[in-house]
Structure formats: C-alpha cells, structure tokens
C-alpha cells in the first residue's frame, strides 16, 4: 500500500506533464490549404441554395414538433 500510493502519484504527475507539454506543440493542419480543392467545390457547400433551404426548413417546421439545430442560425421557432 505504502509503495502503491507514491507510484500512482508519480504516474499522475507524468501524465499531467505529458499533457502540458503536448499542449505547447503547435497543431499542424492535416489538410493544407492547397489540398482543399474538393472541399471548395460548390457541390460540397452545406447551403448551396439558401432561399430553397430556408423554405424547406420552413415547410418542415410547420408540420413537425421538432425545431432547431438545422445548421443555420435561423432554425427554430416556438410560436404556434
């Protein structure tokens, strides 16, 4: 028991030090700007047709109980 407690404490200190050091390392972007050709294609846009998306959200919200978290800040309304 007397041995286990200091060992656990040392492990905790080692873990904390590792975490602290790794936090100092700069985070390297794993997808470089010049590698984003596919993501920049218009067919990848989350909201390619804003008026159409808003209208369909509108249609669904009127007929469903759920609301919100649609990805655009305008989602959700509690008025009846």
């Amino acid at each position, binding site marked *: 028991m007397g041995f286990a407690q200091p060992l656990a404490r040392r492990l905790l200190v080692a873990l904390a030090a590792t975490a602290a050091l790794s936090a100092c390392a700069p*985070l*390297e*972007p*794993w*997808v470089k*700007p010049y*590698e*984003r*050709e*596919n*993501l920049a*294609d218009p*067919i*990848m846009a*989350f*909201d*390619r*047709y*804003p*008026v*159409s*998306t*808003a*209208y*369909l*959200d*509108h*249609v*669904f*919200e*009127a*007929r*469903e*109980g*759920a*609301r*919100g*978290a*649609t*990805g*655009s*800040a*305008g*989602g*959700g*309304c*509690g*008025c*009846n």
Partner: protein
Amino acid sequence: MQLMNERRARLWLSAVGCLLSASAVGGVLPEDRADVLYHRYDGGGVVIDGPSLLVRKKFADKVSVAANYYVDMVSSASIDVVSTASPYKEERTQYSVTADYLRGKSTYSAGYISSSESDYEAKTWYAGVSQDMFGDLTTISFSFKRGNNDIFRNIGGGKDPTFKRASDQRSYAVGLTQVLTRSLIGTANFEVISDEGYLNSPYRSVRYFDPSSPNGYSYQGEVYPNTRTSNAASVKLSYFLPWRASLTGWYRFYTDSWGVNAHTGEFTYTHPMRDRWTFSGSLRYYRQDAADFYADLFPRRDYANFLARDKELSTFTALTFGLGASYDFRIARLPWVSKAQANVRYDFMTIDYDDFHDVRASALVPGTEPLYKLDANIYQLFLSIWF
C-alpha cells in the same frame, strides 16, 4: 372562423436561415448574389404559395449585408379547418435584414426579422459570432436569438378586440464545423430554445367523449403549458466522391419539456453533368413521439390541466423525396452578372399519423375512425445571379 392549425406563424424564423447561414462560416464573407424564388405547397386541403427575394452585397470586403422579403399566401381547407371551422385565406409577409462583419478570423453577425399577418405579429433580433481556428480547419460559432410575438384572434372577418396574448422566445445555439479529410467535412450543432407565454392556438380544439352528442363526441378549446424548452443536437457529414459528386448525411435528435422526442435523418446526392447542369436527389426521414398532453379523443371534458389535439404534437412518421436540377448560364447583355443559375425542385412529402383520426369519416364508436394521412407536393422555381 379562421384557424391557425397550419402553425404558419412559427415559420418565419426558419425562413430567415438563408440570411444568417453565413455566420456558420467564419473568416470568409458570403458571395454577392440575388435570388428570386416562387414556392408552392399543395397538400391536405392547403395551398400555400408566394415569392421570396434575397439580396446579399459586400462592402469593402469587411461587411456583408442581406435582405429578404418573403410572402406566404395561404388558402386552407385542411382537416382541422373542415372539422371545427370554415376554410379561410390568409397572407403572411416577412421582412428581414442581417449584417456580417469580418475581422480577422472572426465574423460578427446581427439581424432583425419582422413577420406580420392579420392575427400574428412577430419580431426577432439575432446576434452571433463565429471564429476560424487550427489552420482554418475548424470553425466554431455561437448565437443568441430573441423573439417577441403578439397573438390575436379573428372573428367574423375582423380582430376580436378582447383577445390579445403574447409570447417570448429565446434561443441559444453553438456550432462546430470541421474539415476532417481532403474530401470530408462535418458540422455539429446544438440549440436550446425556450418559450414563455401563450403557446397554443386561439382557434384549435380538442375532442372528448360526449354521449349526449349525436356523433358521440364534442369539442373544447385546447390548453397548453405556458413554457416550453427544447434541446436539439445534429450532425452533418458531406463527402466528395471520386467521380465529382457529393453525398451528404444529416441526423438530428430532438427532445423537449412537452415530451416530444424526434429523430430526423436525411441523405442528399448531388451530381454535376456537362459543366452547366447539376442534379440532386434527397430522402428525408422524420419520426416523433406525441406530447405528454396530446390525445386524439379525451375521456371527458376538462380531463387534464393541459389538452392538445394538434396533429403536429401527435405520433407520426414523415418521408420526403426530393429532386432538383440547376442550370448555369451567363447573360451577355448584363456584363456585371458574373454567373446566373436557373433552378427547379420538387419534393413529395407523405406523413402517416399513428394517433390522429380522420373525423370526416363517420364511425359507430368515436375514436375508431381511420387514421389520417397527409400527402403533399412541394414545388420551387428560382433564379440566382452572382455579381
């Protein structure tokens, strides 16, 4: 008598999503564009159509301003209307304006929305911020929204001077957009919405067993709680396929203090062809459980403190199939237009209700009428230009 069963008044906030979606992408202001849309919904005895006009313009690459004008022209003879009221016509007009300010990797947004119809006035303001980080692989966003609604009641073609109610809504939303690989991007959103005030319809009724009535049941006004709090969490992933097409999947879980739990799932496939054409197809699934105080037929009058027979609070499953096509072109006579696009989209929605009966059919025993089913055709025709 008019009936607000289509919950049309709650629609205005989602319509403004087209203005505010820019805030989900920090660090880059959206392109200058204008869209004009004609929309038409036809289903369940209800026809709603009208225009939507959106214009967005940048100034000095620091500020982007957008304005939207939207109209719903409603002609309703829905099952709710024909059960307890008369068909009606109504018009709702919405104006909204928003501004995004870009500063470094941050985008600050603010907006105002106003919606007006004969028996419902709604005003909302919005503020949000988004921030790009980690080599622009990650965008986080926060937003707050507050709405104030005034509810009136129409009787005999005019406003009931004795009836005016109010409700207040607050929304808190956080979002995370993450580049995952060279061909995969994802976004997660969480939103809490709380309402307080008059949350039911002044027209809608619930039905209850009444042996003294010839058809075995009678109606009384619905009664809702004065508060409602909802939580919604969603995840969306979009993948670029090797043959230049995209596949997007979306899932949302929803739960609220009224006992409504819902799951929404959607897949969209987008496929460009011959440079100018883009086709898309989508399938959307929605399933919800009923609110705790919902019943198609209550055992007696004043059965509980809260009573609802709004089919949007019942148990049901909805499926929506969508097809869209867009065509890119240039307008030689308008050199300031860099690109133009014509779009057409059709959606078919079918809803099967598990505990909402069609009272237009007679039944020997109340509550044994056939279950209601709604099929709707949704059309959109719109033109977009970039300048």
